[in-house]
């Protein structure tokens, strides 16, 4: 099968005046359709930059980025859903109207979109909260709404930038399980940026490891743990091997 995302030798340099800063050197990896790829690395390793290149928000200075195949076409103007570390809900809009924002921007039919938004809110576990305002919801619930917003226009690719980084540890574990369920149900291709090593292994069908200073790609491997994943897998031996492998690459042993 042809990869949905194909990155080969991608380079990104930031320039400010005469100074140059190499944000990414030689990023090469493939993402198959329906994969959940975790990009893991320390702060400043260029993982957010890479995500923004995939989103079409940044140019790149070398290499190839190709998204979409003949069987899985990709329209960059409407096939991207984004989730950030902060929920970034509009505080003057009710939850369902927040979820509808992308459909308004794209000019999708209002009635069908609303039905879809309500169905998605039910899927992310927010049934009954449609008419609440964001401040009436906990941080975890707000992030669930943000995930529904990223799915509402039925994008082919969902980009997540440390979406659970601001949540407490317990909520985070719960959201990990929820995300895996949502991913299975929606069948989306997801690229998930995190600095949590065990989170990356737990979520990813594939893990791409990036190291900082100079930013470069250190590893790229498939995670051979069965689905559905369960929390007790975190204690099994293979899970430990994967996390040790990443710790080693990041020089933390």
């Amino acid at each position, binding site marked *: 099968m042809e990869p949905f995302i194909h990155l080969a030798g991608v380079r990104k340099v930031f320039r400010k005046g005469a100074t140059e800063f190499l944000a990414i050197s030689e990023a090469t990896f493939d993402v198959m359709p329906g994969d959940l790829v975790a990009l893991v690395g320390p702060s400043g390793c260029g993982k957010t930059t890479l995500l*923004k290149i995939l*989103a*079409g*928000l940044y140019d790149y200075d070398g290499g190839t980025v190709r998204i979409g195949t003949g069987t899985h076409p990709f329209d*960059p*103007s*409407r096939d*991207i859903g*984004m989730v*950030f570390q*902060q929920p*970034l809900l*509009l*505080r*003057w809009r009710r939850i369902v109207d927040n979820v509808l*924002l*992308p459909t*308004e*921007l*794209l000019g999708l039919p209002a009635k069908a979109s609303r039905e879809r938004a309500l169905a998605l809110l039910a899927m992310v576990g927010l049934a009954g909260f449609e008419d609440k*305002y*964001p*401040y009436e919801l906990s941080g975890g619930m707000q992030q669930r709404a943000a995930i529904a917003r990223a799915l509402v*226009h039925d994008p082919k690719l969902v980009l997540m*930038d440390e979406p659970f980084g601001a949540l407490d540890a317990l909520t985070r574990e719960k959201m990990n399980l929820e995300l895996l369920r949502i991913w299975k149900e929606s069948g989306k291709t997801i690229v998930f940026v995190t600095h949590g090593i065990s989170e990356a292994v737990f979520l990813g069908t594939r893990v791409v490891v990036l190291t900082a200073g100079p930013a470069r790609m250190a590893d790229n491997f498939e995670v051979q743990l069965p689905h559905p994943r369960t929390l007790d897998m975190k204690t099994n031996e293979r899970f430990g091997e994967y996390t040790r492998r990443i710790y080693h690459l990041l020089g933390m042993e």
Partner: protein
Amino acid sequence: MTAKTQTMDLLPRYALAVLSHLALVLAWYLFVRFGDVPKFVMPSPVDTVKVLFSGTYEWWPNVLVTGTEIIGGYAIALVVGVLLALVFTWSKWLEAAFMPLLVSLNMIPKVALGPLIIVWFKYGVFPNTLMAFSIAVFPILLTTARGLREVEPDLLDLVKTLRGSRWQIFIKIQLPGALPYIFSGMKVAAILAVAGAIVGEFLGSDKGLGYMMLQVQVTLDTDAMFMAVILITLIGVLLYGAVLVLERLLVVKDARID
């Protein structure tokens, strides 16, 4: 929002607010009644209210004049302040050129402009409206400009990936996001507009409550002076209250800036 306002029911809160106002009036009454205060220094609340109905003065036309100056100046300040802020967020160049100029102009004590405004526009409602406007416009302009700039960069990225237009960003994100800021400026401006109109009337006018105060000062009719102050205050309270009601209708609870 503090924990205190959260746990307190609305009814006792309003009751306490009303009580504190009544207590002030009562204290005023008792002070005059038992404090041996000469009437021309401080009249009792009863005498003050009496002067409103004594027929000695034409209160209503003067209230109307001062009210027109305050509300008129305030309304113009709101329209001009918000529009200027809009223009500045749309054009970096215009902002770079004119924002510093406006800040400098704002440093001019508006009271000092009073005599000039009279020279230019003569006595009357219009120059006093202009005073109210000139003093009320800056807080609205500054808070609106600030509010329009407050947009999360990540949220802009989200809109960009979906090819959202500048107009969509403005109408769906910037403007509603700026509303709490606009209202905080409007509240400050409401107080300033009242002061501006009254100062205008002090400096030169032939009608209005401020003009009346100067007239009765000569005859030491302190009752009337007190009543004039109360009426001016009431106009201000009405304006401020209207702004609060509008804010309650337009701005979600969590976003209000107190």
